[in-house]
């Protein structure tokens, strides 16, 4: 199915949890990553339970230096 990750179209398996998707992307999950899907923040504790849907828009955010 098609989803969007930081606006980039991405193909991924159906019936996948957000946690599984992130693990496949090889993102370091300890690095203060925050995720919103369709403008709703998904708490880390819900990542394993949250199933991705087709056309979901994922926003992956992390802290950087700034004033």
């Amino acid at each position, binding site marked *: 199915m098609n989803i969007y*990750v*930081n606006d980039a179209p991405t193909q991924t398996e159906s019936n996948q949890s957000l946690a599984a998707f992130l693990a496949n*992307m090889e*993102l*370091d999950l300890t*690095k*203060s*990553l*925050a*995720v*919103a899907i369709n*403008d709703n*923040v998904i*708490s*880390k504790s819900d990542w394993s339970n949250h199933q991705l849907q087709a056309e979901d828009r994922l*926003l*992956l*955010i*992390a*802290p*950087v*230096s*700034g*004033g």
Partner: protein
Amino acid sequence: MKTDSLTIGDREFTSRLFLGTGKFGSNQLMHDAVVAANSELVTVALRRVHLQEQKDDVIAHLDIPNVKLLPNTSGVRTAKEAVLSAQLARESLQTNLLKLEIHPDPRYLLPDPIETLKATEILAKEDFIILPYINADPVLCKRLEDVGAAAVMPLGAPIGTNQGLQTKAMLEIIIEQSNVPVVVDAGIGAPSHAAEAMEMGADAVLVNTAIAIAGDPVAMSEAFKLATISGRMAFHARIGAKNKQAQASSPLTAFLTQA
């Protein structure tokens, strides 16, 4: 000695120098500057994660005793974007402290007062401790206080300009009228500017560019630490009045012939 700590929301600070973490030559320099400043509150920004290239972890370099992180919402242009950014910040850093920063115009980076007020009202109801970054507008500061801002952060001059307290007259009014802490943020270019703000009665200052781009950022950071303390001590010591006319410091008698 009486304690002179600063309370914002439910957080207490001994140091009145807050630091921004942008523009440093390296994460190590940034870390060392934060330590030299003895700062207890430093800002970070949020950005989209680049899947191909994962950047050096800034958070790891800010794991310093007594240092709290203050996420900012820089990059957003509207209250709606700011609210989402705030929620992501809270999730990312597990803090409800927030620097609300909405400046769509890239030339001067001046904060949008209307979007900032809107966002503050929404986020205060979601239990954020909000420090809104705004122009030095005394009326806006009172409006923000009314809708639940935990502090106000009026600018001295546009971000990164190092121009000092261009808004001094307005800052004086804000400091006089505010019931929440006043943190002068942006435009502070030298330790003397920080001292000036503290002498006026500001509760704290936030400095980024002036330290990050100094020839020796760590030494400059220490200079700012001392200036902030100095300015605060002077404020407590009550600076004497200015006069137009000279006031002699020795008795005005003829030399040696008169008592």
